[in-house]
């Protein structure tokens, strides 16, 4: 299904936020997820559904400087 991730249209197969991060190869413990302008709580990643047309912002928490 089609979603928008960080402003870019993407075709993904994951049905939950957690599965989506896995599909993208991103470590869930380091990623802040905003879905349709609302932050997803980290303990909800497993259950939060990803739907066609969702607008997702994924920010990786990094430590460099």
């Amino acid at each position, binding site marked *: 299904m089609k979603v928008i991730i960080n402003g870019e249209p993407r075709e993904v197969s994951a049905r939950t936020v957690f599965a989506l991060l896995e599909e993208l190869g991103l470590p869930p*413990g380091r990623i802040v997820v905003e879905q349709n302008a609302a932050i997803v709580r980290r303990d909800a990643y497993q259950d939060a559904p990803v739907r066609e047309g969702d607008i997702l*912002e994924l*920010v990786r*928490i*990094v430590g*460099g400087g």
Partner: protein
Amino acid sequence: MDSGFSPEEGLRYSRQLILEKVGWPGQERLRAGRVLVVGAGGLGSAALFYLAAAGVGHLGLVDGDAVELSNLQRQILHRLADLGRRKVDSAREALTRLNPHCRVETFDLRLTAENVPGVVRGFDVVLDAGDNFPTRVALAEGCWREGKILVSAAVQDFSGHLMVIDPGRGTPCYRCLLPEPPPPDPGGPPLGILGAVAGVMGCLQAVETIKLLLGLPSDLATRLLAYDGLRSRFQVMDRLKTPECPLCGASGGNRQP
């Protein structure tokens, strides 16, 4: 016109003095400001240059490293002639050359959970401009417990993020965002960073710090700003307080009094 500023300072700061939100009262607040910057690297170089240029009266600077050739791609406080020198010395010299009205206090050490409280005490605002997670966590925890406002930025590759953490206002803390910090130095090659991206984020840290000193509100106390240099995008999103946060949560035992 002022309280003890010289004509030279009036001219030096003239372009910000004419800003309605600065003026002489604001310049006075900047001069009275005490700001600690942890890390004289890519982020700290940009932040420190602008804080000194703006006339922040007292800058503290923490870094336990010496200048290396591979630093110069992003750590613009230091020059080729500074190779091998202590970073705090090289940085203090650069800042004092830019603005001799600025007092620079240096801490040539690596921050640990033990020494953070003693270092941050006496400063109004602390900037997290470090280059590793253990230091960031130690600093964030120490600042939270000491009630110090923390302006935290980090970068990697073409990306960076920025947030303000204000224990006095009970905002979400660093650990709310990163409940399980990555293990200390997993080894392997160093991470890539585009120097100009560190500069962008360090400059944003300086802007937020100056706003704090001027008493202007910051949205970033409850939000996270993310910069994606590859896609040329800024994104600002809410931060959530984690009820079970090990630092600020109800069961954390470390809530700000």
